């Protein structure tokens, strides 16, 4: 049976509106439909001017993060029927500038991602003819969960620190730095440490763990941040108690 449901969708067209307004659309609500299907129905059949990002519709490209009833969600993985009888409120992700309607500006994250050097750093490279760098399944497990980040920005949207201090490098970028730090093939942890400790933001993280809660891929950015803080504190202590040569 197909009920109907009302979607209250945030609209913001900078040429027209000075702030976000809500527009209501009444839609069918088949049990298979996710929130994104509802938005597509609006765009195709009711109002072609609604703008939002989406692509894979299988929770892996990371494009369609929005707030659904105030919570950061991948709209392709959030069933409309779970919100019946509605209404359901759909808004752009919190903590980002809004470009238009449900589309937010993520350039800040893109810059931060590059800053943490999310690539393998090694003193010397062995030629391909010598084959792979051996890595046991246990060594792989050591960093694997941090490599699952799809850059969907839900953690930034949920992070109270990022909301207050946009300089905070943020959960996903730190998790990705740790992804490489913990990879047995990598030797770049020291370089990344310097970048991560440049700003106070990381010490502001109070381990509220909102980032980990909203992550659709079960990455644990809060865990990454805590591990990092511990490591940074150890370095700091070492700098005091050890002679320079032993550091």
């Amino acid at each position, binding site marked *: 049976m197909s009920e109907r449901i009302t979607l209250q969708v945030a609209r913001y067209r*900078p040429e027209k509106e000075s702030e976000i307004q809500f527009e209501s659309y009444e839609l069918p609500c088949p049990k298979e439909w996710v929130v994104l299907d509802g938005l597509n129905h609006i765009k195709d059949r009711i109002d072609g001017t609604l703008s939002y990002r989406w692509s894979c519709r299988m929770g892996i490209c990371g494009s369609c993060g929005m707030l659904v009833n105030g919570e950061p969600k991948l709209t392709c993985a959030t069933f409309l029927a779970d919100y019946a009888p509605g209404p359901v409120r759909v808004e752009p992700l919190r903590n980002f500038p809004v470009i238009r309607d449900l589309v937010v500006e993520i350039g800040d994250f893109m810059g931060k991602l590059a800053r943490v050097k999310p690539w393998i750093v090694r003193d010397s490279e062995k030629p391909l003819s010598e084959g792979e760098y051996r890595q046991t399944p246990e060594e792989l497990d050591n960093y694997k969960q941090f*490599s699952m980040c*799809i850059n969907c920005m839900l953690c930034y949207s949920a992070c109270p620190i990022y909301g207050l201090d946009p300089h905070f490098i943020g959960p996903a970028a730190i998790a990705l730095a740790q992804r490489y730090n913990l990879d047995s093939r990598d030797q770049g942890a020291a370089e990344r440490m310097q970048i991560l400790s440049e700003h106070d933001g990381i010490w502001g993280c109070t381990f509220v763990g909102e980032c980990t809660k909203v992550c659709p891929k079960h990455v644990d950015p809060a865990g990454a941040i805590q591990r990092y803080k511990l490591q940074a504190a150890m370095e700091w202590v070492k700098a005091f108690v050890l002679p320079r040569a032993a550091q």
Partner: protein
Amino acid sequence: MTPSFDVVLVGGGGAGLRAAIAIAEAAPRLRVAVVSKVYPMRSHTVSAEGGAAGVIASDDSIDEHCYDSISGSDWLGDQDAIEAFVKEAPQELLRLEHWGCPWSREADGRIAVRPFGGMKKMRTWFAADKTGFHMLHTLFQTSLKYSTVVRYDEWFVTKLLVDDGVVQGVVALELATGKIEAITARAVILCTGGCGKVFPFTTNAAIKTGDGMALAYRAGAPLKDMEFVQYHPTGLPFTGILITEAARAEGGHLLNKDGYRYLQDYALGKPQPKPVLRTMELGPRDRLSQAFMKEVEKGRTIATPYGQVVHLDLRHLGEKLINTKLPFVRELCTKYQNVDPVKELIPVRPVVHYMMGGVHTDINGATPLPGLYAAGEVACVSINGANRLGSNSLPELLVFGARAGHAAAEYSLTAKDPGAAVLAQFKDEARRLEHDLLQSNGRERIADIRQGMQRTMEESAGIYRSGAELKRGAGALRDLQERARHLLIEDQSRTFNTERVSALELTFMLDVAETIVNSALRREESRGAHQRVDFPARDDQRYLAHSLAERQPDGSCRVGYLPVTITRWPPAERVYGEAPANERAHYAAGRAVPSREGV
């Protein structure tokens, strides 16, 4: 006029990023731009699940991977290209390992490989069942190292700039601001992927609208083998979400409504207790999708609100194996289908997955238009012929991304600078985008035309085709093209106007759809993924050849042919599920003739 860049890449998925890195490493002084309509890590490479083939096991050989790919292609693949591809694939996959790709491993730390459909040996590298995701993120994150690579994220390319037959850049639209720019270059590489969205039911992401194919076609480059559309046998009904072939490689069974492993009725061998390579569920995708259609005809499938389905049974694999080797399959089934494969049967049906055809290129990614290159799914080299084997497309985008990058870089050193003509073209294009599209007074809803096109394609160019249906399809597409000249575009904003982009994508798709239907109509035989009910046999006399669809000055599509390159493996019958003795003869056939390099 000085070009803004030496090489412009259109598309930032696996092929585009591999090409960008190849250029940045080989020629660090060249200025390279990656222009992509989405942030690169959103590209559709991200959705690839099962794995990437590359000969690495001690019992495997280059010749065997070649033979599997050639027989899989129903002898339409070019054997020189396949051989180059098979030789270079392992080192490309290894390079990705050096860059940090989290490949799944054996207990001793070596790369692990898994079986895959149509492959006689275990040679498919995998990162659990998120191989494309990990490859894409590894490539993207590695690309951030190279400061010479400039990114245009969320810029949509609307046209190639061509002066006197030479490609000299692109016109692109910035989504966020509506700004329109000419990004000129000495060489352009198209890496925009496929066009699954011309069909209604596809594994492809929303962005797979054939942009690069249409850009090339409109600029005068031929599209090759467009009639060969791969249906993946196991997609979830309604969503079309892919359930990877790895699910069958790990031992999953396909069952009809009676719980019977129906593939044994279709010349794919007999059921064995363990998965046998090139047999039953590990047969090639075209054969498995065709077998499904025959089961529908026999009334042995299961009716659902979203069409007929069969069942994929993974229950006997056990929770542990499913969680380690197929975690994404379990996640997708539980999240999107409300079915737990550990305990329940997964409903599946064939779903449009991949285009064997694409922009005609040589073995280095060069198209017949000077200055224009293509790599990845958008291109047709061809290594896939009439049917691609699963796990050949990921290494393909690495091998040919790198080759196209190197070739374009070299070409750019001697190419002439863009002339004044391209400026005039840019102005015309800007006027079209600004005036014709933003101030249109059309009445046709984009979604109506799109759905009409998708319905037409499924009815006329699906798994089984006929001359009559294809003719009807060609006529219907002409009507839709006409209606698409009067699109309703309600959104007149310049800020992140996705409706204008949808209109542009729709016209790209209509052009691509036309080449598919026309190429399918002309090919009066059945080969691989192209099955004509009115011409059920393969016809090597007339059609051991690539089709080339070319746009005529009046806008119509003309189809010509180009011979297939045969080196060591003369055309033979495709045999699956056969007895071992027979098989050895097939593989040996390739070795009996000396290789060309040897001559």
